[in-house]
């Protein structure tokens, strides 16, 4: 055992500090000012500190970062990046670290939800007929309100001005929240539609750093726009 190992110090010169140098987020230019730490709404939770993440990336401590809970505490709000005097893209850095974790070890339901979405078109794995049933049920409730007697939900209507995606919770636990949008569309005489397939507006590939999954989900929305010949997209996520 060498003398240096006895001190319990790690050998800094044995680390490869260049490992993440091809990540284009500017982490090597940190001035250690800690503006990011000061602005972060979750700094201090389980010792999380965006500045530490940046420094560890600069030192090349990739495994430690991938195994840490820290990158999953970040809410991706982007305040750190907004205040960073060196324009270091800290949320992008954290997202890339998340992407390096084995998918089975992604915390919570994030990866399971994404897997379901890739398989079925939405995070809930909700069948098409159930989805249509919920939408029409909500539309019927709106039609009972004065001034909305003729309201109908335009599912899979072609050639409209606007396609809107649906957050899965709006057809699960928060159906009331669909009504506000729809009533506004009705009052504004908007020509709109919603797709009966691949309608999921939540892209958990973005949050888990899964670029491939994210790309697939985005591609599907583009497909629906093309299928239904819609001019504009409203993606309220």
């Amino acid at each position, binding site marked *: 055992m*060498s*003398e*240096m190992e006895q*001190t*319990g*110090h*790690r*050998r*800094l*010169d044995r680390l490869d*500090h*260049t490992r993440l*140098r091809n990540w284009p987020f500017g982490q*090597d*230019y940190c001035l*250690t000012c800690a503006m990011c730490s000061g602005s972060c709404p979750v700094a201090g939770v389980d010792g999380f500190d965006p*500045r*530490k993440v940046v*420094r*560890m990336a*600069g*030192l090349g401590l990739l495994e430690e970062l991938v195994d840490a809970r820290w990158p999953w505490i970040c809410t991706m709000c982007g305040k750190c990046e907004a205040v960073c005097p060196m324009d270091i893209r800290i949320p992008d850095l954290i997202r890339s670290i998340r992407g390096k974790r084995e998918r089975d070890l992604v915390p919570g339901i994030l990866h399971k939800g994404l897997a379901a979405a890739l398989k079925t078109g939405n995070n809930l794995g909700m069948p098409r007929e159930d989805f249509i049933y919920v939408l029409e049920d909500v539309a019927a409730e709106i039609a009972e309100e004065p001034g909305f007697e003729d309201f109908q939900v335009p599912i899979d209507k072609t050639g409209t001005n606007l396609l809107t995606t649906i957050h899965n919770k709006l057809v699960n636990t928060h159906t009331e929240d669909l009504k506000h949008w729809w009533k506004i569309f009705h009052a504004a005489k908007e020509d709109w539609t919603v797709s009966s397939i691949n309608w999921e507006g939540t892209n958990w590939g973005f949050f888990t750093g899964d670029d491939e999954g994210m790309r697939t989900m985005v591609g599907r929305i583009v497909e629906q726009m093309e299928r239904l010949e819609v001019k504009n997209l409203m993606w309220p996520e």
Partner: protein
Amino acid sequence: MKPTICVLGTGWAAEQTAARLTSEHIEVIRIAPSVDPPLQAEGADSGVIAAALRQVEAEAGRFQLSCRFKGASSVYEANAVVVAEQAERKPRWSAFGLMPGEGVLSLSEALANPDRLPDGKTVVFLLGLAGESDPVITREVLEAAKAHAVTCKVYVLIGNLKVAAQGLEALVQECRTAGVLPVKFTQTRPAFRRTEEGMIVDMTDEQIGESFSILADRIVVDERFEPAGTLSALAELFRLEADAEGFLQADNVHRFPVLTNRRGVFVVGPSRGVFQPDLLEADIAHVVLEARRMLQEPSPAAGVTAAIEPGRCVRCLTCYRVCPYCAIQLKARPQVLPDACQRCGICAAECPSKAIILSDVADAIVLDRIEAFRQETASMQTSFLVAFGCERSAKLCRDATNELGLVLPQRMCFIEVPCAGRISLDFVLGAFNRNAQGVLVLSCHEGNCHSGQGNLHAKRRALYLKEMLKTIGMNPDRLHVRTLAANQPVEFAAVCHEFESTIHSLIMS
């Protein structure tokens, strides 16, 4: 007549100064000063006179420099003198307990022999970990680190990073791009030890709180600038103020760069602790302007400078000792050099024989003003106060109270003096003698006196007088000493009112 300026110094700073002054049509005498008389006679080839300076005499607008060579001596005359000595570089070995040797070298050595940092090695640069860093050293370390990062694994261990110079922030970034890994220390310091494996640096990365070690093939120790060896002798000879490190021209907020406590003596670049070559140019330009102004315009104090009455002077040399501007010349008896005098009046207040007169603040004039004020205001019912204040601070405060509409104590006679150092025992005792119930002494803040220690003289005298008042049975609170800055009119008014009520309650009790 073409003005003559003597440039003192040996290196590039003196060379550049001389060249620039010459191009400005100024006659230049270059002297390379040494402690001992040099072997060779005047170095006529280079135009630089190598000599030991032995004596400096100053007459109005003229310096006489007595120089000694081996077996000979000469006197040179100049209108002004520029001290432009080089600074010396000293590696900070001792700060780290390091010794030059295998694997450990100074910044100068690393710069001179890049081969001493061979390819493939782990190189650790130290920067600003002991004491203050400097932009010149910072640039050298970062340039070297950047260059060697191509072929070596380079660390820069940083304490104090001075980037306030052209392009230095960009250089820090270039280092990062080149692959240099900085480690910043604020609370801790790295430790060094030699083992069989080689030099080891133990440290904590303060950002992530983890302990690391580096097996360093090379450690490059940074350097600091020290005043040239001749500088302390020159300071003594010219009676110039020096800072804690020994660089000339002590920090004084009232003095512009390159000016010293002595009119006609300038200090530039590395002689005053400024080492960046581009700033030396600015220093020299400043000297040219100041020298021109000095040669064209009469002394700002002309006509009202201090004067020594021959009949009263006992040649005790108190004036010579206390004058912050070296304006007392020792001939058969002391004389004031009108060109050098800046009329602070410290000498007039200190002279035990009362032989020195500053005509516009002479004892008789000041005390007559107090007496006249007393008579004019005799009908007022409030306390009779006298306030002595420096014209650079308290006087400006008082002027500002008028503009701000601040009310001052009704029966307060304000006497402005060129420096609080002029407020003599006779002024204060004379005020009490004319029935003043309270006397205020108002000086500039400590460290802010244009004349160096005038405020301290004032304070010392006031404290002495308070003891004296006690002895004779007067309440010492009747004398109050305070410091003010020129931008404190509100505080000034408050101090005056507070003092008035103190005096009022003393009278009532």
